[in-house]
């Protein structure tokens, strides 16, 4: 292997993890399914020479695989949204929660659920129309948050004002969501609360297409704008002197991240800390790979969320923990530990 390829071992390690993690996650669960069973099931899909147990095949292909793909897409998407938000605001604490995007999306989704009847949230799998309505509601909520934050940020879209407006917007929508939950009947409310804490339990092949397409589109667009986004890190005046139309870029990137977040929230509920934590870890671990940070962030976020999902299914036997609880626990402890280190700035 040439020297330059050897230097890229952290990138290869991540790619290997991104391939291996979903495979191992398919093995882990209540039903006893081995790695060879999993490989056999995949082999049976492409060749008649392999034969798989029907029950295990259903568990792997219809329950675990879509769930793991949704977990990967969610982790990847939230990490990407966090990274772009941190870049456009030059604020290492920025994530979809800080700008009210997540809480706006959550409020929009909860309103749609309450208008269409709480059964959609409690019965597990949504119809395609209900799913589309939920996604639309979440996007309208998150876009409204972003527009509110931008309108409060002044004509020059000042970052400090944006952050303050984002915090206020986030609290406003969280309060409104709580009010809707408070007013709903207790049984539906408890299911909704579980959903708002984040869950992949509603994953099915039908629900994967929209998050997948939106994530890929956002990734392509963010990659296309990566040079302009990097220039923003130099400061607004510097970025302008490098040929970047700062306000237009900032607003369009905020709207794109709100779309991405809304799609994920509509499918999985509220999952915090990923958008904040993963870009931080990636910046630290891959400091000399700045040209690759966009896809590294995506893979890292995806791998992280696959393992969080494994933990949520396996920490308490026969019971599923909300995803948002695990990510928040990880995130908060991670930050406290890292901040204890002297060289953290």
């Amino acid at each position: 292997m040439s020297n330059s390829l050897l230097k890229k071992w952290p990138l290869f390690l991540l790619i290997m993890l991104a391939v291996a993690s979903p495979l191992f996650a398919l093995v882990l669960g209540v039903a006893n399914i081995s790695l060879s069973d999993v490989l056999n099931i995949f082999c049976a899909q492409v060749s008649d020479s392999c034969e798989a147990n029907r029950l295990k095949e259903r568990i792997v292909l219809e329950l675990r695989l879509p769930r793991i793909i949704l977990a990967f897409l969610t982790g990847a998407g939230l990490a990407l949204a966090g990274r772009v938000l941190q870049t456009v605001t030059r604020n290492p604490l920025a994530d979809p929660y800080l700008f009210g995007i997540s809480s706006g999306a959550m409020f929009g989704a909860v309103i749609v659920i309450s208008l269409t009847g709480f059964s959609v949230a409690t019965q597990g799998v949504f119809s395609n129309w209900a799913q589309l309505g939920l996604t639309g509601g979440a996007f309208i909520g998150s876009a409204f948050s972003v527009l509110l934050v931008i309108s409060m940020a002044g004509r020059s879209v000042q970052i400090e004002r944006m952050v303050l407006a984002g915090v206020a917007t986030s609290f406003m929508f969280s309060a409104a969501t709580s009010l809707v939950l408070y007013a709903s009947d207790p049984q539906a409310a408890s299911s909704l609360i579980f959903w708002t804490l984040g869950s992949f339990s509603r994953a099915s092949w039908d629900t994967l297409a929209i998050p997948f397409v939106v994530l890929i589109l956002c990734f392509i667009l963010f990659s296309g704008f990566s040079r302009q986004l990097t220039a923003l890190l130099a400061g607004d005046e510097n970025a302008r002197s490098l040929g970047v139309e700062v306000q237009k870029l900032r607003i369009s990137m905020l709207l794109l991240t709100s779309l991405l977040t809304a799609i994920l929230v509509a499918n999985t509920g509220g999952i915090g800390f990923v958008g904040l934590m993963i870009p931080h870890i990636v910046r630290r671990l891959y400091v000399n790979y700045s040209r690759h940070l966009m896809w590294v962030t995506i893979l890292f976020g995806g791998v992280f969320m696959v393992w969080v999902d494994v933990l949520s299914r396996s920490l308490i036997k026969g019971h599923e923990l909300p995803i948002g609880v695990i990510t928040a626990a990880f995130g908060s402890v991670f930050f406290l530990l890292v901040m204890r280190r002297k060289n953290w700035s």
Partner: protein
Amino acid sequence: MGNILSVQDLHWSAGNTEILSDINFDIPEGAFVGLIGPNGAGKSSLMRCLYGVNKPSQGEIKLYDQNLLDLSVREQAKKIAVILQEHSNQMGLNAWDVVAQGLTPHKGLFEWTTKQDLIRIDAAIKKMDLSPLQQQPFEQLSGGEKQRVMLARAHVQSPQLLIMDEPTNHLDVHYQIDMLNMVKKMGISVLASIHDLNLAAAFCDYLLVIDHGKIVKQGLPKDVLTQSLIADVFQTTVQIDEHPFSKDGQEKIRITYAYDQSSALNEKGESHE
């Protein structure tokens, strides 16, 4: 030698307050032009008009024959590079990444970095003696090193004009001289605001003096930096003589500041009597 930049009858107001008025000057091609003036005279406001952040309320800024305000932000950036006095910490980017930012105006969306671009970046890094520092996080560099990174970035941007807002601020004597020598070595037209009058006299081909938002004098340093102008604009008593390191034909001047201004003024008054 033609002019790269011509500013005619420029006015700029912040809200209802006129900050700049009747600004007229030219920057000759390849010249190092210094902008001097007391704090709050309008140096930064004028420079921000030239790199497009402040929109003039009146007047014209011409880059060769093109009206600067008619150019898109990207076209402006291809022609004018800017080095500001304060730097963002660049959120973990290393020196190489910051130098590579100079490619931004030359690349469209989805236009990736080519081998030629990499050669251009490496050449700029070598020219500014940054090779050992290129993988260091930008935020961990010293003030002088950061300025060199910015110069390398401007080199990659390959502009026709370089604008620098107090480039020697916060730098020690060694880095001040080092920085200005490197700028000279780039061989492009430069407009720099400079606080240190001796540095301005030593390095600039021409000087513009701004006071209360107006250009009050412009020309060669030895003609501009007179005792009476410095007394009027900076309220400072000075003595001016030939620079001891001035080479033949350079006519460089040295300015010595009176450290006790009140007694210096008295002495001056007495000598007039």
